[in-house]
């Protein structure tokens, strides 16, 4: 792991983790990810959807997610993100280390930590 990753690990990782977890369930486009995060946090996480994209681009650059254009359920063009093997490994490896933060974030977001 590079030093840059170390530096970015904690604060940015929180959102990264939420995205990775969302994608764990299957491929999803940006708006879908935003909605999923928002709904799973029962509307508490009123973050701007736009702020999702720098995180997605970062994950894509690191090779943790991959993206391809496709057609959504609404019959519209959408850019779908999927978890890569590297991303899945990353998610597992980092889960323990980030457990404390996820617990904390879960509290904030009102998600039952045990259910995660």
């Amino acid at each position: 792991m590079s030093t840059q990753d170390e530096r970015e690990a904690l604060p940015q990782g929180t959102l990264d983790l939420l995205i990775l977890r969302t994608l764990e369930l299957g491929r999803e486009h940006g708006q879908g990810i935003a909605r999923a995060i928002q709904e799973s946090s029962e509307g508490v996480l009123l973050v701007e959807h736009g702020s999702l994209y720098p995180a997605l681009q970062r994950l894509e650059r690191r090779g943790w997610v991959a993206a391809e254009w496709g057609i959504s359920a609404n019959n519209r063009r959408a850019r779908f993100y999927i978890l890569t093997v590297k991303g899945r490994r990353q998610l597992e490896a980092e889960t323990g280390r980030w457990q404390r933060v996820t617990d904390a974030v879960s509290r904030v977001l009102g998600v039952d930590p045990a259910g995660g």
Partner: protein
Amino acid sequence: MGRHRRSRVDIEEEVRSHLEHEADALVVEGMTRSEARAEARARFGDVSQAFPPDAWTRRSWVGGVGRLIAELARDAGLALRTLRREPGFTVVAILTLVLGIGLNCALFSFLYSLTMRGLPLPDADRLVTIHQTFAGMPLGHFGSASMKVGDGSRYVNGTSDMVSYPEYLAYRDRARSLSGLAGFASVGATMAGEAALRVSALVVTCSYFQVLRAPVLLGRGLEPGDCGAAGQVPVVVLGYGLWQSRFGGDGGIVGRTIRLDRTRFTVVGVAGRDFTGTGLEEPDLWVPVTMEPALAPDRLRNPDLSWLALVGRLRPGATPEGTATELTGIGRSRDTSYPGRRTTVLVDHATLASGPILAAQVRSSRIGAFSLAGLILLIACLNVASLMLARMPARQRAVRIRRALGAARHQVVGQLLVESLLLAFVGGGMGLALSIWLPGVFARILVPGGLPVDAAPDLRIVGYALGVSLIAALLFGLMPSLETSRIDLASALRSDTPGGGPGPRTYRLRKAVVAAQLAGSLLLLVLAGLFARSFVLEQRADLGFRIDHIYGFRPDLGDEGYSAEQAAAFLDTWKTRVAALPGVQGAALTSALPLDGQSAAVFVRDPNAAAPDFKEGQVFFVYVSPGYFATMGIPILRGAGLPASRPASGEPQPAVIGETMAHRYWPNQEALGQVFAAPNGEPRRVVGIARDAFHGGWQREGWAFFWSAIPPRAFAGTLVVRVAAHADATPEVLAAARQLDSNVLVSVTSLHDVLEERLRPARVAALLYAALGLLALLLAAVGVYGAAAYGVSQRSHEFGVRVALGASRREIRSLVLRQGLLTVGIGVAAGLLAAGVAAQLVRGQLYGIAPLDPPVFLGIAGALVGVAVAAMLKPARRACSLDPAETLRGD
């Protein structure tokens, strides 16, 4: 999976897709298509954040600045959206700031335009005003204590003064560093016409228009040729205002003649619209200085009379300092004929209020004015800070999320500060607009006719507004921003309250702000109370003379060429005729109406003493005719009033003295029959002692006063008339004057109006403080309410436990109130202390009450506590009605 860069178009496509999907979802949830589109946009936030910064912006210095600007723009956009979502907060905060900043800017631009801004004339930075001072002059004549009212003869040591005409000529002819020098003096004159009109004429040296490069609208300005032999060239330049109001802007006015006092003047020009002279008083017209004898006592030839004010234009390269040195040299060469005298000349950049005396007056008022304005700004900032802290719990949730999503603390503080700056600049901009309008209001409060202050904003005023706004933003924004962003991720997220919350530190801070708010509003309210009470007392005060139904009539006999004897005869006849009019209950002559100016002098007990005893202070006096005491309702306590007949020649003039003067001069003996005099002045004999009457109105203790009989060869030029209630004898009194001389112009005032004018500053001050104090109180009440409500929500868990353990509702309520009252108590105590100090500073402006007036202090402190308790009641009631089961389940 390379590091390939995605194209902008690709990202745009993705964003568009996102927005469409979101809109689809929103339509399903029940929105119309257009609503859904707008909402999707709003939820997305700033679109630019979806685009990665370009390579060049990431590295270079320019890129750093660019990114900073981009970040600022994004913060500003976010701040704008936040502020728009909370219109109540935004409006109150901005209004508070407009007031705080606007008042400061207005004050600054008012004082700036008086003392710093150059005159609105070409190359005004080269214009200077010139004053001379003398040291080592022997004590002269003490005829008048007021420098302005004085006759201009030199009695003052070391005070800067104007110059005589011969001195002007010497300075003009010998000064190398000046390209021109002009002198001017203001005189009143009567302009004849269908209705005679009092005008303010400026007699000026004929270099005046050239030196100032004053604009001329019609005809010409005065020229050197106009100043010939005394009284030879009767020409006049009309001011734009007079030309409009009196001559309807007649374009053919040049060449016509107008009569001023007894002399006909030919109009040679009309001054430009914006030219209002060089001082605070706006002249109606300009005449050559050599025509001065036609309008005023001839002062041209007297070398020892200070009456001309000087304004000069520096030659290129000359400095005010160098010019002062040169002119001082010229003045010193004249000192040789005055043993012991040393002249020093002072040169200042010309402004509306330049010159040492005015500058000192402005300086002394500046400190008080700016402390008040600073205090109001501080209170405004406290109020906004308190509002910001009040919405902190709501904001903090958003901040926590931002922090959790990776924003560094400094980014969060920056974003919150940008919000503060936005508020401050909007407030400051509107305050600046207010400050264009307010200085005129200040000017009208200070001087009934207003002052020609130019409050148009220039760079310095805008700079000042910007600076004040920045300071304000830091004052009210920094502390709440730091507090709001003070989140240690781990501990904040672990907080017991659902959703976390600000810690006890913040709560303490908030209480401190509330206490400071209370202290500030208490201070303002106490000042308002003191001024209001003083105003009421002053209005009802027994000044020692009647005010109702008393009118003063002042004819302009001097302007009409009357000698003192002729004037005395006119006034005597007029008085006798007026006294006989129906509805008139009394008529008498006086040299000055009460409250409207009087003479003061230093007197001595022994008429033969050479020097006055200054310790005894000044004595004020007026000349009155014998009927004055009956007309004004002033009781004579001992002795008699003034006799109707004049004393035999060589005998002292009779005088009635007030009780204060009697006590001061003859503390242990009978004052009746004593003789006193001014040094080198006429002796006077005490024939009666009257109850003190406060002719000065606002002056009180230790104010010695006497009424002198009118000496021979003098006259008392105002007729005071008391009329029966509901009677209006004014037309008959004026008709009586016209019968005697149809040219005489009589001005009429009622004593009521004079009193009103006197009381106006006090009323304005009381109103101003009251308005600001009430606003501060309102905001403080909101602050108390917010702090208490917040305290209750913070401790709801604790209260729940207490209730569960058997605490009664009353115990809970008193717990809440007790805690709040501590804050209120600290604020009130601090406020009382500050108000006590401030009251001492304004004690000179108070009438009839001690600065530490208990009713005002206690009453306002009590009212404030009452308001604070009322503001706490609702939160306290909420604390009582908490359901223990519910609050405990929150765990």
